[in-house]
């Protein structure tokens, strides 16, 4: 398939060709045609799997100016820049003028005629993108498998590329084994960067790549967007298809600036060295990607087909039919994990599929932050528990709420005006990231100013699903959609939508042993995959309430209030409606039924009665 490789290996040729063809007809709108061309190509079956991914392939194995893809989160948006959309070059020997296209390129050809009347100035926007924070190890494992399979069928694009594939799969396996044994709290996978030359890693350390989560690794990228940049929002997750640009000339510029310009030209003093470094880092470290096409990622689960669920009815119906059985399996599994507490396991499922699906003025609907109290403090139970969840969700983050962490960590992103960038914080997370707050680590002590601010930020996140980014002179509110689970011994100091006290049904004499047994429990990967698909699909289903159900819910509420007005408040109804919604979805039902409503009421009652037993005990009530 030579044509395939043309547009993957040399996309600029396609662009140039279209540009040249359009010259006779200035109003042809060749820009749109280019985008259309690549979109069509990528729509072809599996076409997008042929494109090498910046996430999986080390940068130095990728061919410059080839088409690559990048799965990323928009971490920061830089100012728009004006560039030469078209320009003329003059050959010094012949004086012949050639019109050239400046789109999708960083550097112009030699001999630009600055006086040319044909120069067209155009505008583009730069986004700073990082890999999706908190991606779990199994994720890249699956991706690289599927990628390896598909790439075997085709000719290897560059000669230096061959060894990587093998290495990568090795790396994938390594990841998998790490995933199981990893003791480290953050549990971040060592991604493919581990095999990158050490010099690169070393230089990365002095240049802060601004990852939201500590200990993250991976390529970050400056994505140049040519059209429609207003449709992108901060923290969007995208799969970007674009032309890779790693021209060493870009780095040369940065070096030269550092050395001389600040002294030579006082007007440059506004752009500090800091700013220079951030906005034009060496291309070998932060490649530029000229976006041709970007696909929003609604779920970020590689196991699901990439098309939206509506478009893929076959997949949807097959999953839906299995849902009840998968749910039962998952429930058994989680019950086992939660020391035999089936109710907590049921709530945990609901929590895992919760999703902010709408906002009514300030109120986010569908959020379901959970407080799992009564966690055994011993034997690192919470960390083990997190590692199990990690196997189920695409991206997650473990935040141990120790005093030190709270006082020192940067949770809220802050604008750094010196470098003119948004310094990321741990709460800058992609949608549906699972955030695990471990309160069992909290000991008595004093929170300082940062600590108080961090706790407030966590509280805001839970109650309003928003994070107020610190812009020094003002704050700016960014809505988010993060599933927060708080594990604590008593009632958490943070607010939550529902608190459930863990009641251990089993009392293993040796907790350590019990837990490690769960972990070693051979969950076959096919079963794990079923769970993963189940959770992602359930979250994306549509949901409705019929008029009759509305009526019956209203009646129920009135009746409940009649018996004991103190027992049920508007708040409770809010929660019960969310529980009912999640319960229906977890069973694969897209509308509320009488049964689900009664069941929702029932489990909520069970939960509350359990809480009342504990209320008198822990005394952490308002």
């Amino acid at each position: 398939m030579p044509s395939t490789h043309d547009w993957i290996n040399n996309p600029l040729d396609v662009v140039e060709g279209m540009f040249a063809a359009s010259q006779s007809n200035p109003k042809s709108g060749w820009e749109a045609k280019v985008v259309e061309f690549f979109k069509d190509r990528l729509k072809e079956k599996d076409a997008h799997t042929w494109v090498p991914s910046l996430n999986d392939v080390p940068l130095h194995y990728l061919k410059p100016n080839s088409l690559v893809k990048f799965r990323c989160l928009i971490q920061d948006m830089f100012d728009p820049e004006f560039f030469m959309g078209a320009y003329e070059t003059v050959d010094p020997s012949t004086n012949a003028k050639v019109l050239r296209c400046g789109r999708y390129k960083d550097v112009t050809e030699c001999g630009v005629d600055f006086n040319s009347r044909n120069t067209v100035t155009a505008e583009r926007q730069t986004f700073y993108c990082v890999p999706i924070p908190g991606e779990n190890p199994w994720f890249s494992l699956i991706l690289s498998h599927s990628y390896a399979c598909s790439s075997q069928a085709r000719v290897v694009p560059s000669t230096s590329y061959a060894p990587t594939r093998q290495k990568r799969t090795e790396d994938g396996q390594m990841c998998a084994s790490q995933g199981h044994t990893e003791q480290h709290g953050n549990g971040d996978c060592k991604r493919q960067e581990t095999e990158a030359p050490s010099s690169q890693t070393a230089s990365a350390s002095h240049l802060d790549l601004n990852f939201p989560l500590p200990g993250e690794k991976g390529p970050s990228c400056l994505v140049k967007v040519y059209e429609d940049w207003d449709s992108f929002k901060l923290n969007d997750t995208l799969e970007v298809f674009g032309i890779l640009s790693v021209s060493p000339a870009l780095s040369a510029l940065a070096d030269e600036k550092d050395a001389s310009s600040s002294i030579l030209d006082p007007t440059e003093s506004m752009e500090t060295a800091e700013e220079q470094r951030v906005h034009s880092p060496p291309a070998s470290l932060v490649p530029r990607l000229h976006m041709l096409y970007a696909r929003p990622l609604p779920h970020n689960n590689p196991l699901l087909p990439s098309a939206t669920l509506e478009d893929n009815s076959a997949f949807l119906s097959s999953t839906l039919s299995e849902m009840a059985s998968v749910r039962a399996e998952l429930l058994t599994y989680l019950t086992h994990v939660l020391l035999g507490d089936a109710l907590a396991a049921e709530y945990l499922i609901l929590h895992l599929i919760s999703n902010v699906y709408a906002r009514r003025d300030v109120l986010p609907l569908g959020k379901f932050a959970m407080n799992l109290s009564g966690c055994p403090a011993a034997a690192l139970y919470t960390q083990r528990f997190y590692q199990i969840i990690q196997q189920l969700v695409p991206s997650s983050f473990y935040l141990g709420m120790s005093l030190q962490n709270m006082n020192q960590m940067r949770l809220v992103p802050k604008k750094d005006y010196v470098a003119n960038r948004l310094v990321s914080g741990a709460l800058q997370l992609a949608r549906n990231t699972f955030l695990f707050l471990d309160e069992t680590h909290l000991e008595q002590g004093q929170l300082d100013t940062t600590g108080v601010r961090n706790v407030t930020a966590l509280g805001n996140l839970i109650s309003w699903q928003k994070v107020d980014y610190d812009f020094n002179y003002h704050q700016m509110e960014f809505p988010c959609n993060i599933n927060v689970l708080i594990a604590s011994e008593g009632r958490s100091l943070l607010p939550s939508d529902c608190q459930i006290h863990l009641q251990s049904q089993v009392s293993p004499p040796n907790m350590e042993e019990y837990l490690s047994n769960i972990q070693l429990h051979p969950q076959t990967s096919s079963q794990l995959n079923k769970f993963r698909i189940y959770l992602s699909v359930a979250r994306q289903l549509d949901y409705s309430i019929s008029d009759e159900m509305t009526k019956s819910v209203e009646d129920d509420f009135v009746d409940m209030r009649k018996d004991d007005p103190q027992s049920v408040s508007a708040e409770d109804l809010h929660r019960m409606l969310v529980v009912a919604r999640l319960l229906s979805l977890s069973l694969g039902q897209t509308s509320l039924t009488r049964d689900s409503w009664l069941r929702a009421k029932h489990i909520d009652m069970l939960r509350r009665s359990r809480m009342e037993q504990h209320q008198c005990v822990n005394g952490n009530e308002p």
Partner: protein
Amino acid sequence: MSSPTSTPGRKRGRDGNPATPSSEGPTSPPSQRRRGQDSSNGDLMPMPTSPATDMLSPAAPQDTSLFSSPRPHPLSPLMYGTPSSRVEGTPRSSVRGTPARQRPDLGSVRKAPQVDLHSDADGAVASEPNAGQRLVIWGTDVNVGTCKEKFQRFLQRFIDPTATEDENAGLDLNEPLYMQKLEEISVVGDPVLNVNCLQVQSFDAELYRQLICYPQEVIPTFDMAVNELFFERFPDSILEYQIQVRPYNALKTRNMRSLNPEDIDQLITISGMVIRTSQLIPEMQEAFFQCQVCAYSTRVEVDRGRIAEPAVCRHCNNTHSLALVHNRSAFSDKQMIKIQESPEDMPAGQTPHTTIVYAHNDLVDKVQPGDRINITELLLISPRLHFTVQHPNSLSHVPAGIYRAVPMRVSPIQSNVKSVYKTHIDAIHFRKTDEKRLHGLDEDAEQKLFTEDRVQTLKELAAKPDVYERLSSALAPSIYEHEDIKKGILLQLFGGTRKDFSQTGRGNFRAEVNILLCGDPGTSKSQLLQYVFNLVPRGQYTSGKGSSAVGLTAYVMKDPETRQLVLQTGALVLSDNGICCIDEFDKMSDSTRSVLHEVMEQQTLSIAKAGIICQLNARTAVLAAANPVESQWNPKKTTIENIQLPHTLLSRFDLIFLMLDPQDEAYDRRLAHHLVSLYYQSEEQIEEEFLDMAVLRDYIAYARTYINPRLSEEASQALIEAYVDMRKIGSGRGMVSAYPRQLESLIRLAEAHAKVRFSEKVETIDVEEAKRLHREALKQSATDPRTGFVDISILTTGMSATARKRKEEVAQALKKLIQAKGKTPAMKYQQLLDDLRGQSETAITKELFDEALRSLADEDYLTVTGKTVRLLA
């Protein structure tokens, strides 16, 4: 020679084709100019004070005695009719006595020759050639003569028909506005004339268009026109330098996001917030060279950021003998300012953009980081190339000019360049939008512009009879019922009319309505607060638990860079003219709360710390929420007892609402329905049902700015009656049920209600509604739980009249008891309490007993020390 500075052709730009290259500044490309002038090679010739500059720099005529530069070179056909030669031709010598000052803000490259339309096809513009020669500046359709005449006519004739703003204070509104301003200049001696572009537009749309499109040519022409006019009128006045025109308020107000290549080299006004300012940069305007052989000196103007060092001394003909003398070169001030989009202009979910602005001369240091400003300016693109004086003696201060259309170079050796331009903005005028907040009223009108359509929709909405209900139901639709509370908050959003009694010594009257919400936890108080905070443009949200007095008021800190003391304002000051939402009001520490006393009545904030003594305006409405002390509202206690707030503070709230669970079946049903529908309705349905938040926001903004209702005769009567009625209710039982504060509240509420109707007059219906709402609020919060009557003294003195009566009774009973005991100078505390309990029919609590003891102690009848009570008498 690299001459990359010249701009590419600009013909297309002039045809009004907006998509033309940005690089086409109205400035004529130097290379082409040169081609026209002398058709020599592209080398930059050493230009001794080029005549082009003269004619270009705002006030062309320069005092020859000051600058020993040779006069312009012979009149070429191109030079004919240039501004400079014209001015020179005029006999007004006084103009020439005042030195011109360079205007780097317009770019140092505007060496625009005028072109005869007939001779140059390139200059093709949409103006029909006159019979004679019609000269326009190259690449534009600006004819200097006509333009000047037009502007002079504008200055001489323009009378602002809409002038009411206090901005023009002290000016006669029926006289030509700008002539008065010129007069002011002659008196004050500050040679800056600010010209409102909107006024230019209303006077002469064509002139305005030219100003917007070709500011670099038109503004110098304006300068010339003004100076001619000025020195004609005031020939004797002495100015430091010639008058400079500073246009502002160009209609094309853009936010930073919408700037695009079309705006390059145009006059624009954008607003933003200053985030950084650089140090002062001296920018060389004119280099002074001296021959080291014969000491002959010469001056070279900076031409497009470059100084062409004369290679040969003209006097002694030695080559390379000239040295730059820094001390005698002329410099101008320059400062780089970084501005960022103001948060209001930004679409949700994106980060703010920043832009670099250059300020020149006296605009330097006019703004500080954190200021909100409007800037009128030119958008320019500047290159990243460095032009340096090629001289061994040159020091680090190398002039850098503004160049257009030269892209960043990758390296001096390689000849491929990075295809990105660097943009910046040259400021012509700053206007601080928050400048006036510290003194006097601020004109929100200038910030919030409403389109005709919008005003029409708003007025239609206002004409509807149920507008009040509509708006209140549009407020926080996700929160159910609590109609009266929403109405109260709605009135708070509108606020009363501001009155100034400073003449009579009382200062400003509070126009803001303060509201306190108290009630059970979980009754969506916080949600309501969040909603309001999101709705109003200048709102602040704090939580009582987390805020300190300092955070609310202001604090002084030392700027790490300048070592200056800087006053940092807190939430209350920041929400001046807005609403300060304080959650968990009851959890606030006493010292913090005490700050609120001043704010909530006097609307000012006095600060005396670290050598700074000042009074800041804090005309903020306070919306507070408080939880009852016992976590559940106790209906058997008064409001004060439930929330434990000092009554002095409570009495400053106009409305105090209780948010309680009503516990009634019909209510429950409606509530359930509301909540369920909240969870299944689609976005569109929601949109249909309620007014858009944006409409509501505009409605409020419009009413707050344009509507200033006054009391009508009937309304005043109704208010008086209402007040008298309120007083009467209580007087029957020996209680006071209303104080003047309540009357003021009523007035404010009535005014706010009139604002809701867009009515300039407060009428009886407004008073009725104010009365109703006030009564409702009182019914909830000031009902004495013991008697069931509304008792305002609960809020004003912290104790209901019955409770006070009871206290006195107990005190008397205690006194009797002690007297009955006869001569016992000391008694046991517990013993006495038990005795009193045994004697009294009603239950006597320990608190009550303590109160009684205290009141007796106040009478000097006894004294309590520890557990013993001693008689004094």
